[in-house]
């Protein structure tokens, strides 16, 4: 029992001595793509004007297969740093949310493609492994 107490004590003292500090930083680019706004878009019904009213001007306007494609994106970056006396560990994780709205030649929504990768984004320190 006393061995485990000593071990725990050593661990606590070591971590206090060796740890200088830790840091959390976060950066975002673009507006959050609201799920309720995307849910309001109906294929073969919603018009280009309604899309602009719902989501604002697109971040990118593409022309693909003779159709207009509105692209909206948002980036989220989380940085975790563990600052020790002799060594620092840092990990920067960046993920994006992307929304593509494909409009047909009449300006009616043909397809809506949304993927939100930022929901599961976590602060991580450990740079090794996955």
């Amino acid at each position, binding site marked *: 029992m006393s061995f485990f107490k000593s071990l725990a004590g050593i661990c606590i003292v070591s971590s206090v001595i060796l740890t200088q500090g830790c*840091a959390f*930083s*976060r*950066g975002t*680019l673009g507006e959050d793509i609201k799920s309720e706004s995307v849910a309001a878009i109906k294929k073969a019904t919603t018009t280009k004007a309604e899309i602009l009213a719902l989501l604002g001007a697109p*971040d990118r306007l*593409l*022309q*693909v*297969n003779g159709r207009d*494609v509105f*692209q909206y*994106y948002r*980036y989220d*970056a989380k*940085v975790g*740093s563990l*600052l*020790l*006396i*002799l*060594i*620092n*560990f*840092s*990990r*920067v*994780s*960046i*993920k*994006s949310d*992307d*929304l*593509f709205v494909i409009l047909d030649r009449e300006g009616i929504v043909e*397809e809506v*493609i*949304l*993927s939100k*990768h930022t929901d599961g984004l976590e602060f991580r320190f450990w*740079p*090794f492994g996955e």
Partner: protein
Amino acid sequence: MKLPLSGLCPLLLSTVMCVTFVGCNVVRITLNTPLTQNDVAFIVPGRTTLAEVIAKLGAPDSITESHTGVVATYRFLDTKYSRINFGWLLKPFSPVDADLIISRTGLGTDAFELFCDSNWVVTHQSFLRHLSGPRFNPYPF
């Protein structure tokens, strides 16, 4: 044209600056989830549609037009940086801050590209660089 990630550059730069003044640094930067051959094994050219790919992998980072149809691109990055400052060994004995630094960065940028015909059916697929992934290795020589 302004790159989408240019707004995040100050954050990345400040992170690198903050961790520069210690003996050893290990930094990893990941952008999106790196894809592997296993992740895209379900794609059968001539049969799989872009909608099926999106259902499994999510939306691509970009969709552009080519002469034969559409190109969808998934970009990802797995950068590994490691650095050792041997000057730290002299700190207790030297009146000046001497530095002897070795460092190495493996950028690990890659992309997965899908070529689709006008009916959104995948015709070709390929990774841009077939990287096996960089390792943490500060030795630059």
